[in-house]
């Protein structure tokens, strides 16, 4: 998983042509909670991870989303 993969997924879900890592999901990209759920579903399916509801609520930027997905990919010891 790379940051570019996440940028592409966000652009596709939100119907945007250009998305930057530090774009604010709500203020800049106009994401709604439904969009975040769809993004979470897509990420969970693609990377076989589980994204907790509490963590989704904390997301601000596309980079935050990447960091969250990446964190949940890491094997737990």
């Amino acid at each position: 998983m790379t940051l570019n993969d996440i940028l592409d997924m966000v652009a596709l879900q939100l119907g945007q042509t250009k998305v930057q890592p530090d774009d604010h999901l709500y203020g800049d990209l106009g994401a709604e909670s439904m969009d975040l759920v769809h993004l979470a579903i897509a990420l969970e399916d693609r990377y076989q991870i589980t994204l907790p509801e509490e963590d989704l609520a904390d997301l601000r930027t596309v980079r935050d989303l990447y960091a969250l997905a990446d964190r949940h990919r890491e094997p737990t010891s």
Partner: protein
Amino acid sequence: MHPRALGSLEHAMTLTNRAFGLVAVGVLRLRQAPPPAVLQRALQQVQARHPLLQVRIVPTKKTYRFERLSPLPTIPLKVLERRDDHHALAQAQQMLNEPLAPTEGPLMRCVYLVAPDQRADLICAFHHAIMDAPSAAHCYHELLTLCARSAAEHGLAEDDALPQTIQPAAEALLPPAFTGFAQVRRLVPFLFREMRTDRHYRRRTTAAQRPSLHPPSTSHILSESLSASQTQALVRQSRQESVTLHSTLAAAMLSAVVRQRYPADLPLARMLIFSNLRPYLKPPVAPEYLGCYIAMQRLTIPFAPTSTLWTLARSLQESLHAANKRGEKYLSAVMSKHIMQQALRTQNDRMATAALSYVGPVKLQPTYGSIEVTDVHGFITPNRLSPEWSAFGHLFRGQLHLDFMYMRNDMDAAAAQSLVHALLELLRNP
């Protein structure tokens, strides 16, 4: 501090308070709770940090204004002996029925229930114009942080200082596409759509529209929660159905209330949804700035006896998504004062069949030093024009909590309990 005129939403809250005594009440349940003197000191520090806790609301010729109180009275804190675990909700219910006097201020008051075993409940009533759920949670966070730090005899760090300026109202912070002439251009079709939907809804749902006939009535509350595993299962299933937890809860509320209260036939159901505007404003407004930055949206959807939880949830979600893509959350915030003025003038119709304010995870830590936060609740005074059944939902410590509000004129305690039971059944076995 510069006083300012109230924004549209703040004005709507003030009108509702004047007509029906609207109060927002928060409950915080604690173990290893701080002594009352420590809480009192923390409360004074929090009041000093936030300009909206130092004001009253005064009427002017055309509108209302926030005006600084001088001399500044401290936020009232009444300390009572905690009787049992039910005492906090009984106290919250009592405070929900005691309107604040906005022209006197301050616009917050508290009751602290204290037991010898260091269990305690802090119940605070706010004027809704100065506080929404994110800022109320932040206010509690500051109070608990200060209480926890009091042992070390220092307060919040100086770099945590907040400007002593009241933040602008929501309509002054809307995205550029919703200001000036662009706003007017969007408002016209929005209002036509609202009128058309309203007429259609009124024609087909007379019974559900009628407000209770014999005011005044008292507000009553109930509170329930799902276990952590039930909450996780509901989140998982909502994701599988491609709907948000918010949509699932709203659908469950509508389903329960329509089936229990209007079993014969209600072809359309209307839900009042409250959304957080803070992250969408320019610039975004952080929760540490107290204020009311919410949008109240009405969603009208078809309801059939065969409607399942998921068909209703999808229908609500699509309706909300379409409305938000048209920017209606901004437009409804702009229009809230006028909508409330109109509703109060006629007093003919209820605003919806049910209402839900779902705020997601509450931004409170489970512990502050040795203080443990075991539970959080939130309530808003219902009135004869608001839906007969309203709820405030949130996640805390991995559990979904639901706080319900209703008026005694609309239903008795057994009917309310039966509604809650039906809702929980739906959520536990969707």
